[in-house]
């Protein structure tokens, strides 16, 4: 999850991409807080996430799992990972979180300047920042930056560069459309913060630029 601060892409694209974490702290507010987390998850659904997963039921938003099943799975210590694709939604979400006042840590990953504005609009004063100083080391071994726009939406590197290329090939050859391809790419992400809406836009932009090879 830490890796959400390292999502790559253009500023225009990252403006439609805000990962949000609901995170009780072990030893501080785990015990007896399941219902508080559940209330926050109800708000998550109310605002309309682009994707989400609860640590207690590792099925993403597009797996067919029903909200009731996710809510019923929430217990003490449950953590929830979600992503939103608009500034209006994230502002609304944070306002509702503030009003709900459940005492559970909330983290937003996104463009610093935008989050600053959104926090002010929601009446929040953020506490701590985790800055990314980028990739260090043998960067020549990395896949190209346009492929990393997709792969870095999964912090644990479960969305492989070859799968991105395979989906681009399938989009170009008409085997899947850009939304279907994005859902395939979202599936390996065990944290549910792969944003298929952003992915769809990137596939539409990129598919014309790639040659059709095996991958």
């Amino acid at each position, binding site marked *: 999850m830490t890796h959400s601060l390292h999502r790559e892409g253009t500023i225009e694209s990252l403006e439609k991409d805000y990962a949000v974490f609901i995170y009780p702290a072990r030893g501080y507010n785990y015990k007896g807080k399941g219902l508080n987390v559940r209330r926050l998850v109800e708000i998550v659904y109310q605002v309309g996430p682009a994707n989400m997963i609860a640590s207690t039921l590792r099925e993403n938003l597009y797996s067919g799992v029903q909200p009731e099943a996710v809510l019923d799975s929430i217990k003490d210590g449950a953590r929830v990972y979600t992503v939103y694709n608009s500034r209006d939604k994230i502002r609304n979400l944070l306002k509702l979180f503030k009003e709900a006042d459940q005492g559970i840590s909330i983290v937003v990953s996104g463009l610093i300047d935008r989050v600053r504005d959104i926090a002010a609009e929601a009446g929040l004063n953020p506490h701590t920042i985790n800055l990314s100083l980028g990739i260090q080391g043998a960067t020549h071994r*990395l896949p190209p930056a346009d492929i990393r726009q997709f792969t870095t939406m999964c912090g*644990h590197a479960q969305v492989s560069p070859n799968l991105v290329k395979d989906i681009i090939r399938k989009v170009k050859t008409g085997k899947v459309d850009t939304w279907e391809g994005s859902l395939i790419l979202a599936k390996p992400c*065990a944290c549910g913060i792969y944003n298929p809406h952003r992915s769809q836009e990137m596939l539409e932009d990129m598919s014309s630029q790639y040659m059709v090879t095996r991958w």
Partner: protein
Amino acid sequence: MIVNKELCVGCGRCQPYCPAEAIHYEDQKSVVDQDICFECGTCLRSEVCPVDALFEPLHIYEYPRAIRKFFSDPASTHKGTGIQGRGTEESKTNDVTLRCGPGQVGVAIEVGRPTLGMGLRDIQEITRALAQSGYFEIEPNNPVNSMVLNHETGDLKPELLDERILSGIIEMTIQKERLPGLLQVLKKVIPELGSVFMLDVVTLLEDGLTIPAYVLDVIKSEGFNWRPNAKINMGLGRASE
């Protein structure tokens, strides 16, 4: 991960799912290169094999091979921390725990990220450099801590050195005055690495999501830059236990 050759029909559907490019054709069947495989389980979870030929043999849960699983499969829970993921709760709960408090900065070295993974020998290059410079103050609950043989030298347990993991996070909290020295140590070790890491700096914010000037000045003066996106704790948590 292993492919049952008796069952495999050679369709190759599993191959693009592998983040390590460990699955390839051999005699028209898919096989997993055991040296390269991180045991992340991505191919199995994808459920694309039409004949259920992919399976996890029991030995992947035996030490030292098990370290691949715990550090590469986000669905597995590390025994030491009880946390899914490769780090601890770090900045995500800092409004409650204040693990990184006034006058301090947190530093996270996300080894192997993004995508490439890292061998333990490369990780040892980093831990040795940190230890020999007096900066190896790894969080006790950090999963990487379980790999360490000697905190004074930074040596990792020798039986682990041939293993490789998709991601691990070396997390430390230090007094802010020590940040320049720590960044200088990392700059020296970077050219020696065969893989990559991502670098994070954690700090308390001033009012209005203002990043302390000292932290930004140190980052710039040591030749690093910060990216336009970041992970931000919104300050809504509180302790109740």
